[in-house]
């Protein structure tokens, strides 16, 4: 037994030697970490960015281009509230020059654990390498009553800011500045990429808003309170939530109450994010004949949502289809 453990320790050390040498070569090229280059390292210097959610990974790629290497910690099919503080994520935080996360306590269950174990001061809260998107937008649903009897509420307000493209625009501007601060050698490149992105984004926003005009005032039911920013942007009216409290699985008594409410006050659709199971939404749909709309919620949530632009193309498309299917009028 003892010999086996000894052998394992030796093997671990062996692997370390190989990887360690390789990594030193990479580290030497990271901007702001010394200018040592050459010595067999021919890769282009690139800033290691770890994005907590896919939307920020996509945004970092838009603005960072070839000057960054982006690792996205979660996929569009994962619940960003509940991520395991996995060893692979600790290793990524260890390597990162910059973290791009939502903040507003969305990652409270896992990011602090990663940060404490990674031994990387470049990305600790307070360092320039720690970027919280939610601190650059106006947040909705800031609770006036903070108590766990209200479920999994976020003290700083609703953190799902990425469903409003106007928020993306604000975060993009802040991110381009921050990238320039962390990696001054490429500040101009970040700025010019941001200018190009911003122009394209504004055009796209006009297009989405024009297309989504029929959605204004449409009554909807949401499964989780994940869409206040989307509703705010498009003028959707959220009249009921299937989770009685945020983060608490919908109970049958609460669902019955929602059903009764919908008989008095009908809704056009029930929406849920792709990462959530559609059990509760499907149950409601089977009893009311209103359609269930699965929204991508973030990049990669649906096959169509490949980047930030197609994320909103697809979101608007899916909402419009539901309204057309149920006919016009309210």
């Amino acid at each position, binding site marked *: *037994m*003892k010999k*086996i*453990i000894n052998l*394992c*320790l030796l093997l*671990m*050390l062996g*692997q*370390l030697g190989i*990887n*360690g040498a*390789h*990594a*030193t070569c990479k*580290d030497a090229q990271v901007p702001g970490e010394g200018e040592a280059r050459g010595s067999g390292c021919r890769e282009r210097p690139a800033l290691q960015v770890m994005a907590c959610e896919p939307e920020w990974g996509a945004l970092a790629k838009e603005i960072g281009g070839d000057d960054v290497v982006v690792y996205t910690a*979660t*996929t569009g*099919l*994962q*619940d960003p509230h*509940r991520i*395991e*503080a*996995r*060893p*692979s994520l*600790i*290793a*990524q935080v*260890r*390597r990162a020059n910059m973290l791009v996360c939502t903040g507003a306590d969305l990652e*409270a*269950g*896992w990011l*602090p*654990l990663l940060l*404490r*174990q*990674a*031994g*990387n*001061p*470049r990305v*600790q809260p*307070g*360092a320039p390498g720690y970027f919280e998107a939610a601190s650059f937008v106006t*947040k909705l649903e*800031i609770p006036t*009553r*903070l108590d*766990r009897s209200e*479920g*999994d509420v976020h*003290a700083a307000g609703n953190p799902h800011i990425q469903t409003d493209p106007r928020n993306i625009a604000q975060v993009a501007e802040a991110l381009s500045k921050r990238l320039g601060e962390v990696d001054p050698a490429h500040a101009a490149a970040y700025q010019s990429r941001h200018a190009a992105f911003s122009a394209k984004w504004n055009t796209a926003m006009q297009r989405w808003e024009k297309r989504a005009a029929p959605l204004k005032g449409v009554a909807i039911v949401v499964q989780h309170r994940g869409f206040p920013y989307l509703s705010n942007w498009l003028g959707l009216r959220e009249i009921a939530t299937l989770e009685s409290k945020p*983060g*608490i*699985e919908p109970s049958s008594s609460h669902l019955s109450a929602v059903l009764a409410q919908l008989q008095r006050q009908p809704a056009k659709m029930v929406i849920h994010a792709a*990462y959530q*199971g559609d059990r509760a939404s499907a149950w409601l749909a089977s009893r009311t004949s209103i359609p269930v709309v699965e929204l991508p919620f973030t990049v990669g949530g649906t096959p169509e949502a490949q980047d930030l632009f197609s994320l909103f193309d697809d979101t608007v498309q899916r909402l419009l289809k539901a309204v057309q299917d149920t006919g016009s009028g309210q």
Partner: protein
Amino acid sequence: MKHHFGRSRHPASRGTSASMRVAVMGMIAAALSLPAVAQGSMIGSSANAFNPAISLILSGTYTHLSQDPAAYSLSGFALGDAASPGQRGFGISPSELHLSSNIDPDLYAAMALIINPDNTVSLEEAYFQTTGLGNGFTLKGGRFFSGIGMINQKHPHAWDFIDEPLAYRTFLNFQYGDEGLQVRWVAPTETFIELGGEALRGSGFVAGGNEKNGIGAHSLFAHIGGDAGVSQSWRVGGALLNAAPRGRESGAIGAGLPDTFSGDSRLWTADFIWKWAPNGNPGIKNAVIQGEYFWREDDGLMSGAVSGITGDYHARQSGGYLQGVYQFMPRWRAGLRYDVLATHELNDASGALADPNYKPSRVGVILEFAKSQFSRFRLQYNADQSQPGGVDHQVYAQYQLSLGAHGGHQF
């Protein structure tokens, strides 16, 4: 206010526990009211805005044991004072009070106070940890749970079963915490590789009674981990704890008749954990399989309290467990665990230990319902054959509540 720290069990006066309670309630109230005060967009300047994060774990257990826990012993194993299947009937588990905060841009500190059911207080952890060293290094100092094993670093409320694995009960006297320094280094690789070492006082069991200048016990550990696709992740680890106990107490400690061991004690540990969650989304379904294996070598002198003989003592003993926990639907989990201990070699000239020709084992099943992320209710059954002379049927029913700030758990 007088507090009782350490593992010794002093009966606390009523006044002490009452004033303690008031102070604790006050701290919690302050923490919970903080965000309400700071309600609005930005946190204003207020004296309590820099309070540490406070969390409290409350838990209670109903225990049914078919064999008398007072007579619990494992033949051939020198057990510490905390080795027990628990007390019969209703009871509360130790309440855990955690406080933690960043100290400055480079330091973090945390404390875990345990308020025992007998109204004594023990300081489970109190340490600082660096966040600003860089290059993957982290230094921790104070009193903390050692990095050996896997669940050893986790607080008991984060364990998947209500009671500890037999290997922990036997070789670590429940869990190994000590005072000293720990250095960890994470490699800058895509695969998670972590190496660590500890220089310790040597006051916890395994070491035990080893108070001297210099280092009383030291450990080395290594972990490797990663993902296999988006749905699976894993970690394996190995460690060595080297201690030189001087008068390590075992046996009838409560009765004032402890056997004592002095010599060298080396504990080797190997562990693995594998987690599965469809699409990496553990909320609906997930599974965890983990196991740990311990090997201990004791060489020295044992003094038997009853026999009155001090003589050569050499032991080669091992133990481990394998367990699987499956979340089959949201909020519901079921688990199965198998425990085993073995004595490979035992020369005990003192006659302190009973016949080692018995291989203790235990099978446990557990069902868990989590009302939310902050409360869980568990029911566990063990068929415990850790003692010769029939199966001890053990039933535990437990509630566990988490109040206040509570981050996630380690992998």
